[in-house]
């Protein structure tokens, strides 16, 4: 087979795998669900046009030349999208290095590895860009419908930032490998991805809080100070914004630059891709040592189970990065809390829903790891403990961890506003309990390493968990500002949880 034939054959193979993986994610791996998944996707896409209209409908009539404030808002939005894509791309690249499903086969084949890995890098870029196109379609649609076909250029901008994000992600990951070695890269890359994904929004929120005492990012972006610091309207910085609203010149330059960047990364890093993958596999076979002089500890069987769960959670890189991200999201409300000590801002109320939402989300992940992600399921099942005692111990672990993370924040809130602290504590407890219960009702035994696939095992559980967290967050916020509204919201959220239980396979 010639090199060109190998390349097209491998590209087809990569596309086929990507398509099947995406399909499995959408259908939860069940063939019979394809039609339902397609219908659900179309319905979701149509539904997404409503929030898209609410968010950017008013910008549809923007015309060139744009004023500085519009340029800043539009550029910041593109920068945010790019940061999210970069975060997603870093995750994808790390996954390719560490999930060695087919790397052994590829690297032991007589094909030219540089070509093969160029295709794989291109596939990552296409995957990241494809997902971004999917999510951006409702927004571009709204702009095209209300502002004309010139907004179709938005798709071009998405492609350009998708390619550049993928290129940069590959460069960052491989450089991390070189700098800190494969053992630490996985964790650091996850943390970097989380910080990049959330960092931009959080930085804007922090600036808004410090300058204006509000969580609104737009307060900073539309301020006179931002306009004063921004470069002139003909600066290169604004090209992405100008390209997005249909300025063909900057659009073509952007597309060309992103392709050159991706091509450059492919040329420079494809030969190193194999070494990096080998480095990742070598890391898998060198173990980390624990220097604890171990005298076994006593206690009940449940204590033994809880100790094991705590130890595994402490050593879980996913959990560390996720907790860090949740804590990162809590920085702006914490800052708001700190400011409110000196100035009695009403904005402090905003802390409660953020905290409750974060608790629900974290509890869902923790509950999956402890309840479903049991690597030695046979051992625990053959231990002399009743299944209910095992479950109780695991649930206790989730609630203790949530308590340990959120108690300090609630305590600090108690100093500023005791009633709000009580409402927040109740919200955290109910939100975490609901998320844990949903995981319990839909539990399917799996290995901890399958955590990423937890959302595909049951769409219903994933959606219910999200709605429950949002619902309890809204209820807590309303309890502080509009108690009657809180009663309605609380009943609706309880109904969601009850319906989820009714539909769950574990009912009864």
């Amino acid at each position, binding site marked *: 087979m010639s090199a060109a034939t190998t390349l097209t054959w491998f590209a087809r193979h990569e596309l086929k795998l990507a398509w099947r993986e995406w399909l499995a994610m959408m259908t939860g791996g069940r063939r019979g669900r394809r039609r339902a998944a397609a219908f659900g996707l179309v319905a979701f896409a149509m539904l997404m046009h409503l929030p898209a209209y609410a968010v950017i409908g008013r910008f549809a009539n923007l015309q060139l030349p744009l004023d500085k404030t519009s340029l800043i808002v539009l550029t910041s939005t593109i920068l945010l999208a790019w940061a999210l894509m970069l975060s997603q791309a870093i995750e994808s690249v790390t996954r390719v290095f560490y999930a060695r499903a087919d790397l052994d086969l590829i690297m032991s084949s007589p094909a030219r590895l540089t070509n093969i890995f160029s295709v794989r890098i291109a596939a990552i870029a296409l995957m990241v860009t494809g997902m971004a196109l999917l999510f951006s379609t409702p927004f571009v649609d709204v702009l095209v419908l209300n502002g004309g076909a010139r907004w179709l250029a938005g798709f071009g901008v998405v492609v350009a930032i998708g390619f550049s994000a993928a290129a940069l992600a590959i460069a960052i990951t491989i450089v991390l490998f070189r700098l800190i070695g494969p053992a630490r890269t996985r964790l650091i890359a996850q943390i970097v991805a989380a910080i990049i994904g959330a960092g931009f929004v959080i930085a804007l929120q922090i600036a808004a809080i410090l300058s204006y005492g509000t969580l609104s990012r737009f307060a900073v972006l539309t301020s006179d100070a931002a306009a004063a610091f921004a470069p002139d309207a003909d600066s290169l910085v604004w090209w992405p914004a100008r390209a997005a609203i249909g300025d063909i010149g900057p659009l073509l330059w952007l597309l060309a630059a992103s392709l050159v960047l991706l091509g450059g990364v492919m040329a420079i890093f494809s030969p190193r891709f194999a070494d990096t993958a080998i480095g990742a596999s070598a890391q*898998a*076979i*060198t*173990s*980390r*040592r*624990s*220097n*604890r002089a*171990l*005298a*076994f*500890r*006593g*206690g*009940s*069987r449940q*204590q*033994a*189970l809880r*100790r*094991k769960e705590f*130890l*595994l959670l402490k*050593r*879980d890189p996913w959990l560390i990065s996720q907790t860090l991200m949740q804590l990162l999201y809590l920085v702006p409300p914490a800052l708001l809390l700190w400011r409110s000590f000196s100035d009695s801002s009403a904005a402090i109320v905003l802390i409660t829903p953020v905290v409750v939402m974060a608790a629900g989300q974290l509890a869902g992940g923790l509950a999956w790891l402890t309840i479903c992600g049991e*690597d*030695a*399921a*046979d*051992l*625990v*099942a*053959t*231990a*002399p*403990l*009743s299944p209910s005692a095992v479950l109780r111990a695991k649930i206790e672990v989730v609630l203790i961890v949530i308590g340990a993370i959120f108690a300090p924040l609630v305590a600090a809130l108690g100093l500023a506003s005791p009633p709000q602290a009580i409402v927040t504590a109740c919200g955290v407890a109910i939100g975490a309990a609901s998320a844990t219960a949903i995981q319990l009702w839909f539990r399917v035994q799996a290995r901890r390493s399958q955590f990423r696939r937890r959302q595909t095992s049951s769409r219903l559980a994933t959606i219910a968990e999200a709605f429950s967290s949002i619902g309890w967050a809204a209820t807590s916020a309303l309890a502080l500002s509009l108690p009657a509204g809180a009663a309605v919201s609380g009943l609706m959220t309880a109904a969601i949880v009850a319906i989820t239980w009714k539909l769950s396979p574990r009912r009864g």
Partner: protein
Amino acid sequence: MKSEQAALRVQGLTKRFDRLAVDSLDLTVRPGEFYALVGPNGAGKTTTLRMVAGLLKPDAGSVAIFGVDALSDAVAAKQIMAWVSDEPMIYDKLTPLEYLEFVAGLWGVDPRISTAAARDLLVSLGLEAHLNERCEGFSKGMRQKVALAGALVHDPRLIILDEPLTGLDAVSARHVKGILSERVRQGHTVIMTTHILEVAERMADRIGVIAAGRLVAEGTLAELREQNGHGNTSLEDLFIALVDVKAEAA
């Protein structure tokens, strides 16, 4: 009377998935016996032992471990037995010592006893250099040894092993066989499934041949030969003859 109780008594055990996997199986294993269960792929060996270990619920039948009804009093039955599967299930992020500490805690073993027992077991299995290394980089053989040590650390009266020698090198396999034989000499009962008929032939006091979910022959090697009129043949020839007869009958 308790000493005369069977280590394992299975009566009328039945399990159906898409097809009948275990078909009204009766099986008795005596205390202090090394019992090997052999049979072709899909014969129902693993399903039978998983039901005995409490990992699968039978559709019908009874299971008693040293007189304890394993279906109505599962916790008491589990207290005196251990299960090791062919796919070692251990925690990547724990060291062998931490894993054994967890297992000993689950079985409620006095930590003063289990600390020393765990170390001795791991050393005897050749894992001395890896006591404080996380299991994530271990080979399948090393993982199998850790799982086996976990099964033995609480000193069970009945040890059930499903293909415990799969993936082990010759030295490791000899270690494992030595440890199991030693346990039997100390009065423990071992039930093991294996595809390696030579192991069954050399180690087992009695051998049960299972096919299509039923026990088609049982006894010492000499008894099996005698029952089936195969004179001086090896267990392999005997096994093939027994399984072929069963397949023809089916």
